[in-house]
C-alpha cells in the first residue's frame, strides 16, 4: 500500500471555514449575546480570506483545485457572507429569531459554495452543492413562527431536491459514457474520442444545464425563487440571491468550459433560450410586483439572464465578463437588500413598494443610497451595474451574438420602469405614514461598503477587470 497523505495546502481555507462553523456551534452554547457570534463569523471569514493567499494548487488526486477562477468566486462569497451577516444582526432580533445557528448555517452554506467553486470533480461538486443547498433550505425557513417562511423553505427544498436529482442523473450518464467524474478528464475524453455529437452526451449536458439553471434561477427553472425570496428572512434573501447564484455560475462555467469544451456549438441553442426567457420573464413579471422582495426576486432572475450572455459567448472573455457581472451584482443587490432590511421595524413589515412613498423626505440619505442601487441595477452609468452589463454585452457581441444583445438591451430598458418606480415613490410622492427605520452601526457599514463598491467600480472599473482577467489566466 502506497498511501500518501494528500497536500492540504489548497484546501486550507475550507478547513478553516469548517473550523469556524464548529466554533460558532460550540460558542452558541456558551455565549448569551448572539451579536458576539456575528463578530466571530466576520473575523473568522476575514481570516479564511487571508489564508486563501498561497493556497493555489490541486490536491486529492486532482479532485480539488484552488486556482484564480475559484479564488475570484470565493471572494464574492466572502463579500456576500460578510455583508449578509452585517445586515442580519439587528434584523433577526426584530424577527425574534436571534439564534446562534443562523451564523453557523450561513458559514456552512458558504463553505458549500467554496467547495463548488473549487470542485474539479463532479462528485466533489455535488458534495459542495448539497452542503450549500441544505444549509440554505434551513435558513430560508428560519422564522419558524412565520408560515410564509415555512412555505419558502419547503418550496425551495422540494425544487432544490428535484434539481439535485437532475444533476445526479446527468453525472451518472456522463460517467457511463466516459468512465470518469473528473471534469478535465471528461473534456479530454470527449475531444479525443470525438463523441461530441453523441445524443446521450447532449442529454447529460442538458441535465447539467437544468440543474444549474435551478441554482442560478434561470427561467423556466425559476419557479421557486419568488416564493422563496419573499418568504425567507430578508437577510437570507439577500444572502441567497447572491451566493448560490454566483456558485451556480461558477460550476456552470467550469463544467461547460472544461468538460464540455469541445461541444461549444451545442451550448448556444441550449443556453440562449434560457437567457432570453430569464431576461423576458424576469423583467416583465417584475413590472407587476408590489412586494419589493418579490420584485427583486424577478430582478435577480433577469440578472441571471444577462450573466448567461457571458457564458453563451463561450470564450475566456465571456467567462471574465460573467465573473465580473457576479462580482458587481453582489454589491448592488446586497446594498438594495440592506436598505430593505432597514425598513423592517418592530410591528412594521416594510416590504411593500408603497412603504417607500416619500422616503426621501424623512430619510434623505437612505433614499439616496437606494437611488444609487436602483440605477445600478438598471445599468445606468456611472454606477457599477453599467460596467457589468457593458462587459457581458461586449463579449457577446464580440462572439457574434449582436441580435441577442439587442434583445437584452430592450429588456434592460423595460427593467428601468420597475427599478425607477421605487425611485419615483421615494422622491416624487408624499409620505402617507411616518416610516421608521431600524438603524444600526453594522448596517451602516454594510451600506457604506456596498455603496463604495457600486460607485468605485462604476467610475474606475480597471482594477476589477484586471483582477477578473488575471483570475482566468491558466484556466
Amino acid at each position, binding site marked *: 500500500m502506497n498511501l500518501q497523505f494528500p497536500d492540504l495546502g489548497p484546501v486550507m481555507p475550507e478547513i478553516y471555514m469548517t473550523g469556524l462553523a464548529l466554533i460558532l456551534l460550540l460558542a452558541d452554547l456558551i455565549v448569551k449575546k448572539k451579536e458576539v457570534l456575528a463578530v466571530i463569523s466576520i473575523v473568522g471569514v476575514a481570516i479564511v480570506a487571508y489564508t486563501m493567499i498561497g493556497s493555489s494548487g490541486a490536491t486529492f488526486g486532482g479532485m480539488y483545485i484552488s486556482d484564480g477562477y475559484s479564488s475570484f468566486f470565493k471572494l464574492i462569497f466572502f463579500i456576500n457572507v460578510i455583508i449578509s451577516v452585517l445586515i442580519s444582526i439587528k434584523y433577526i432580533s426584530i424577527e425574534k429569531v436571534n439564534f446562534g445557528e443562523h451564523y453557523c448555517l450561513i458559514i456552512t452554506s458558504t463553505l458549500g459554495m467554496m467547495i463548488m467553486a473549487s470542485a474539479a470533480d463532479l462528485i466533489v461538486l455535488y458534495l459542495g452543492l448539497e452542503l450549500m443547498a441544505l444549509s440554505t433550505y434551513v435558513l430560508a425557513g428560519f422564522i419558524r413562527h412565520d408560515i410564509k417562511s415555512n412555505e419558502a423553505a419547503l418550496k425551495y427544498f422540494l425544487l432544490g431536491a428535484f434539481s439535485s436529482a437532475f444533476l445526479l442523473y446527468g453525472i451518472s450518464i456522463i460517467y457511463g459514457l466516459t468512465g470518469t467524474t473528473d471534469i478535465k478528464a471528461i473534456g479530454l475524453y470527449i475531444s479525443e474520442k470525438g463523441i461530441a455529437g453523441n445524443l446521450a452526451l447532449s442529454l447529460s449536458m442538458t441535465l447539467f444545464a437544468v440543474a444549474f439553471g435551478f441554482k442560478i434561477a434561470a427561467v423556466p427553472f425559476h419557479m421557486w425563487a419568488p416564493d422563496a425570496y419573499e418568504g425567507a428572512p430578508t437577510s437570507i434573501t439577500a444572502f441567497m440571491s447572491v451566493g448560490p447564484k454566483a456558485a451556480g455560475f461558477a460550476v456552470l462555467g467550469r463544467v461547460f468550459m472544461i468538460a464540455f469544451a469541445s461541444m461549444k456549438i451545442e451550448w448556444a441553442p441550449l443556453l440562449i433560450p434560457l437567457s432570453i426567457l430569464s431576461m423576458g420573464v424576469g423583467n416583465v413579471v417584475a413590472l407587476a410586483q408590489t412586494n419589493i422582495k418579490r420584485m427583486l426576486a424577478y430582478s435577480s432572475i433577469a440578472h441571471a439572464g444577462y450573466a448567461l450572455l457571458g457564458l453563451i459567448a463561450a470564450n475566456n472573455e465571456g467567462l471574465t465578463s460573467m465573473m465580473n457581472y457576479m462580482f458587481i451584482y453582489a454589491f448592488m443587490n446586497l446594498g438594495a437588500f440592506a436598505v430593505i432590511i432597514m425598513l423592517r421595524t418592530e410591528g412594521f413589515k416594510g416590504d411593500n413598494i408603497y412603504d417607500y412613498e416619500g422616503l426621501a423626505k424623512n430619510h434623505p440619505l437612505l433614499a439616496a443610497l437606494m437611488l444609487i442601487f436602483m440605477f445600478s441595477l438598471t445599468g445606468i452609468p456611472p454606477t457599477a451595474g453599467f460596467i457589468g452589463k457593458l462587459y457581458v*454585452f461586449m463579449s457577446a457581441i464580440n462572439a457574434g451574438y449582436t441580435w441577442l444583445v439587442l434583445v437584452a438591451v430592450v429588456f434592460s*430598458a423595460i427593467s*428601468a420602469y420597475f427599478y425607477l418606480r421605487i425611485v*419615483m415613490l421615494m422622491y*416624487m410622492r408624499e409620505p402617507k405614514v411616518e416610516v421608521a427605520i431600524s438603524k444600526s452601526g453594522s448596517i451602516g457599514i454594510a451600506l457604506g461598503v456596498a455603496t463604495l463598491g457600486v460607485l468605485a467600480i462604476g467610475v474606475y472599473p480597471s482594477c476589477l*477587470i484586471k483582477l477578473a482577467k488575471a483570475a482566468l489566466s491558466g484556466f
Partner: protein
Amino acid sequence: MNNLPYPILSTIIFLPVLGALVLLIISRSQETLTKWVALIFAVATFLLSFPLFINFDKTTYKMQFVERHDWISAWNIKYFLGVDGISVLMVLLTTISAILCILISWNAIKVKVKEFYISILLTCGAIAGVFSSLDLFLFYIFWEAMLIPMYLIIGVWGGPNRIYATIKFILYTLVGSVFMLVGIIFLYFLAGRSFDILELTTKTYPYNVQFWLFWAFFAAFAVKVPMFPVHTWLPDAHTEAPTAGSVILAAILIKMGAYGFLRFSIPLFPDAAKAMIPAMLTLSVIAIIYAAIVCLIQKDLKRLIAYSSVSHMGFITLGIFALNSQGIEGGILQMINHGVVTGALFMCVGVIYDRTHSRQIADYGGLATHMPTYAAFFMVFTFAAVGLPGTNGFIGEFLTLLGGFTRSKLAGVLACTGVIVGAAYMLWLYQQVFFMKVNEKVIGLPDMDLREMVALAPLIILVFWIGVYPVQFLDFMHPSVQHLLERVNGGGLTQEVNIAKAIMEVIR
C-alpha cells in the same frame, strides 16, 4: 494651443460636480446658503470656461484644449476631452445655462432645495461632458449619467402631471440610448477595439454596416432632438418640468441629439448619412410643419413653446442633413439660437408662472399694461423666435433654409411654410397674453424684479449680438464644418464652399 494653467474642460465638467458635493454637506436648513453656493459654483464654472471663447483657434478643425489620459486600459478606454468648432459653443451655452437655471429658480423652488441645486449642477456638468468627450465610452457615460438628475428634476419639482412626464422622458431616452450602446460596442470591435472618436472617424466601414449603425445611433439622437415621430415625450416633459428643467431641456439637453448627428452619425457613417438624406429631410419637414400647426391649437403656454421647439429643431435637422456648409453652419448656429431663445421663453413663462401659478393662455390678457418691462423682454424673444431680421433667429433660419433649399427645393419650400405658421402662432400668443382685454387675474401683478432681469439680460444681448454680427460665431465653425464635409464628400465640394462664402459676404 492650450496654454492655460488648468485643464479647462475637466474643470467645466467637474467643478459643478464638486459644487454638488459641497452642497451635500451643507445643512438642510441653510437654504439661502445653498443657493449662493450653487450660484457661485455656476458662475465660477462660467468664468473659467470663458477662455474657450477667447483662446479658441478659429483657423483649424483640429481638436483643441485636449486632455488625454488612460482610464480603463483593459478596454483601451481613454479619458479624452477636447473641443472643436462644432462643440465649443455648446459647451459655453451649457455653462451659461447653469447660471440662468439657478437664478430663475431662486424663489420658485421651495421644497427639497438642496437636492434641486445638486441635480442642476450635476446635470450641467454631465452635459458639458457630453459635448467635450472624444471617447465614445466616456461620451456614453455622460450621456446616460445626465438622465439621473434630470429624471429627478422633472419628477420631483415638476407640475401636477410630472410623474407621467418624467417616466415617459426616461423610458424614451433610455430605449433610444441602449440601441446606440449596441452600436457603440459593435463599432468598437469593428474598428479593432477602439473608442477613440478621432480614430474612428478616419476609418471607412462597409455600407451595410454603416446603414445599421446609422440607425442604431439615430435611435438615440432622434429621441433626444426630438425628431418626428419620437417627439411626444418633449411636450409632456417641457410642460411638467420646473422652469429650470425646461430651460435645461430646451437650451442644452435636446441639443445633445443634434450634436450627436454632427459628431457621430455623419462623420462615422458618411455613406449611410448621404443615402439617408431624403428620409432625414422628410422627417425634418414633417416635424417643422406638423409641430407648427399643433402649436396653433395649444391652450397651455409651455406646451405651445414645447411644440415650437419641435418645429425649430426640425429646422436644425433640416440644415444638418442638407449636408452642405450653409445648412450645417446654420444648424449649429440655430442650435445656439434655439437654446438662447427658447430657453429665454421658458424663463419668461417661469416668471409669470411664479406669480399666478397658471400656464393657461386664457388666464392672461393685457399684461403689457401691468408688466411693461416683462412685455418688452418677452417681445424681443418672440421676435427672435419668429426669425425677424436683426435677431439671431433670422440668421439661423435663413442659413438652414438656404442649405435645405440647395439640397432639395421641395424641402426648402415646405420648410418655409413652417416659418409662416411659426410667425402666426408666436404673434398670436403674444397678442393673447399681452394685449387684448385685461384679464382681472393679472391686475396688480408686480413687474420683473432685478434678479429676473439679470437672468434674462445675457440672453437679450446674445439675441442681438448673434443677430447683428453672426460672423464672429460662424467663424468658430468654418474649419470644422469644412472638415466634416470633406469627410462626407471626399473632398469635391469647392463649388459649395464658394456659394457659402458668397452668402457670408451678403450677411456681412
